[in-house]
């Protein structure tokens, strides 16, 4: 199944979703980008240059790890994890960013901008910009700046300018709006490195293509390790890039069930979540350049979303997903903040892995379902990132008093230094 084999006149559309909804002023820019991407996509040289950098700079291929302890404890399917947390900068975001960096070079542009929620995409973009020699501006909602400060620190030290966005909900979606505003002003020398498979065409296709490296590797590795395909593949879905990345390894295999795990926040009916397809609160709309399911009110204004994981705290979704969902190709589930904390504890203690809060959403769903599966069945979870970046959030979520005392002492020390 080639989801990118668009019917004529429907380029950039996945069923009813996708498209390009941009201000006229970006018409040429987005066309140039589409054109350039089309050429790169056809150019084997491009892909091998891309893979070369991922290998030598980011450490790909990332391995697949079997979790014997967790599998045994749950007493059902055998659980395997694709380790994109082992990438340079700690998440799958680097895949996309390296790809767009190469593209940006081909476009002859000297500056990149990016939105970031969890900070992982901003961190990856700042890293890529340092490496490729681009100027770099990162837009980040003020709320996210506060909850992902360590990443802000690193972005700045990597030479990026980080701008806290104070409009709207002050999270990921507002950072995207700010990027659009920058882009319509500076498209001449600036490429917008969108961080997830959202936004106007060709972004969903392009980001998906770069992230497909996860699924390609994972399928081959799992076959090598176990001699067979997985029965189910779980991935968390924020914008939906890591999920489409790993799913692409298995779309052609009907025996493999694909499960997207969204942010359930405070749960069904709470109105404080970011579950677009798993809950019933979202509807089709057009915003931020594309058509998809959005958490919005009847008027078409976006609702406040919430997740303990900044990277999932977004009201829209990869336009490919509503299509695959309607086609019955991907099932959607949601994990609540509370469930995520529990799963995190369990995984750390039983296997020595520290998934990012985003990733932990995929674990929650897998942990719920594994016991109902047979011992010869195989589950594959995409570990999209590591939890190091989340230390403040996790320490707070787990109510760690020692951490708080440590921060208080540090603060006292800093204040004394001022005197």
């Amino acid at each position, binding site marked *: 199944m080639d989801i990118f084999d668009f019917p004529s006149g429907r380029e950039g559309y996945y069923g009813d979703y996708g498209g390009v*909804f941009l201000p006229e002023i970006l018409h040429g820019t987005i066309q140039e980008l589409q054109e350039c991407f089309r050429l790169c996509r056809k150019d084997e040289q491009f892909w091998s240059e891309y893979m070369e950098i991922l290998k030598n700079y980011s450490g790909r291929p990332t391995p697949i790890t079997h979790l014997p302890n967790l599998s045994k404890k749950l007493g059902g399917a055998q659980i395997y994890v694709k380790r994109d947390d082992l990438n340079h900068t700690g998440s799958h975001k680097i895949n996309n960013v390296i790809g767009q960096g190469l593209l940006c070079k081909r476009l002859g542009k000297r500056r990149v901008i990016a939105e970031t929620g969890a900070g992982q995409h901003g961190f990856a973009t700042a890293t890529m910009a340092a490496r490729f020699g681009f100027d770099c501006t990162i837009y980040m909602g003020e709320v996210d700046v506060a909850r992902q400060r360590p990443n802000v620190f690193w972005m700045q030290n990597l030479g990026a300018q980080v701008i806290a966005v104070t*409009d709207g909900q002050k999270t990921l979606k507002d950072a995207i709006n700010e990027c659009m505003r920058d882009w319509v002003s500076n498209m001449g020398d600036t490429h917008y490195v969108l961080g997830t498979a959202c936004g106007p065409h060709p972004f969903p296709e392009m980001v998906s293509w770069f992230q497909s490296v996860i699924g390609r590797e994972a399928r081959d590795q799992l076959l090598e390790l176990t001699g067979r395909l997985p029965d189910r593949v779980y991935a968390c879905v924020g914008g939906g890039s890591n999920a489409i990345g790993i799913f692409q390894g298995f779309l052609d295999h009907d025996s493999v069930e694909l499960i997207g795990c969204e942010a359930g926040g405070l749960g069904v009916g709470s109105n404080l979540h970011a579950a677009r397809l798993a809950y019933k609160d979202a509807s089709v*709309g057009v*915003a931020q350049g594309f058509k998809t399911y959005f958490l919005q009110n009847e008027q078409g204004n976006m609702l406040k979303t919430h997740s303990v994981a900044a990277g999932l705290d977004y009201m829209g979704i990869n336009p490919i997903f509503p299509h695959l969902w309607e086609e019955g190709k991907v099932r959607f589930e949601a994990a609540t903040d509370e469930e995520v904390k529990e799963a995190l504890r369990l995984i750390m203690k039983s296997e020595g892995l520290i998934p990012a809060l985003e990733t932990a959403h995929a674990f929650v769903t897998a942990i719920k379902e594994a016991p109902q599966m047979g011992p010869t069945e195989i589950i594959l979870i995409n570990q999209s990132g590591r939890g190091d970046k989340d230390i403040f959030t996790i320490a707070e979520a787990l109510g760690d008093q020692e951490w708080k005392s440590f921060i208080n002492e540090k603060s006292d020390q800093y204040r004394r230094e001022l005197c």
Partner: protein
Amino acid sequence: MEVIHQRKVRPISQRAMLVSLADYISEKRKTKDILIMAHVVCGFPSFEDNMKALDIMQSKGVDLVELQFPFSEPSADGPLFVQANEESLKSGTTVDQCFDFMKEVTSLFSFKVLMMGYYNTVFKMGEEEFLRRLANAGGAGFILPDLPLEEAVNLNSVAIAEDLAPIVLMTPTSSDQRLAKLGAASYGMVYVIARKGVTGSKTIIGDSVLKLVERCRKHTDVPIAVGFGISGREDVDALSGHADVAVVGSAALRAWKQSGASGLHDLFSSLSR
């Protein structure tokens, strides 16, 4: 909506009805070198204040007004309008209220009124329903900055059939080929964006803007409005003789925020001729 009831005593005699947008502009241009289009964000700071502002605009001879329906993701707008959109929504503004307000405005004032907003407002309501309500509210057309021509085929053709003008935007980055395509689709009025960027910051109306207008003129027969960063008499004068309409957007909101009704009064006094 209470605004409407408070205002229902006003005469509706000045209402411009059943005159299509292009004709309205051509007619007015016979006596005026250049027309003025003003911009109001519905419900910011309040519908009452909107009404006061429109009163002043009418009194100062403003010819057209865009009524912006607030949207939660106004990504083509600059900080001033972003904040206005946000505040308006926060105070509870709905699309229904905006249409009701538009209906009152078109019944009270003689300037032409365009809906301005983002496509999702239209999409969520349904395109036909949107057009029906726009016509019913007396609107002369609509400006949807995030809806490119390719996605607007159905909406625009139905609109044109109803003599509602789907305002086409032409920009400094548009190629001749693109301008030709935009021109071919233009109806009622074309909106030329004077520069890159979002609304709000000042544009110097110099040769490059005038050349752009000239280029655009080659591709369309309908009247041309120029906007983005027009902030005073000087800009309007510079456009005079080149464009048909000068759009005064952020400048008006800035004047209102800085000095209220009197600031707005002064701004439009200086623009009127």
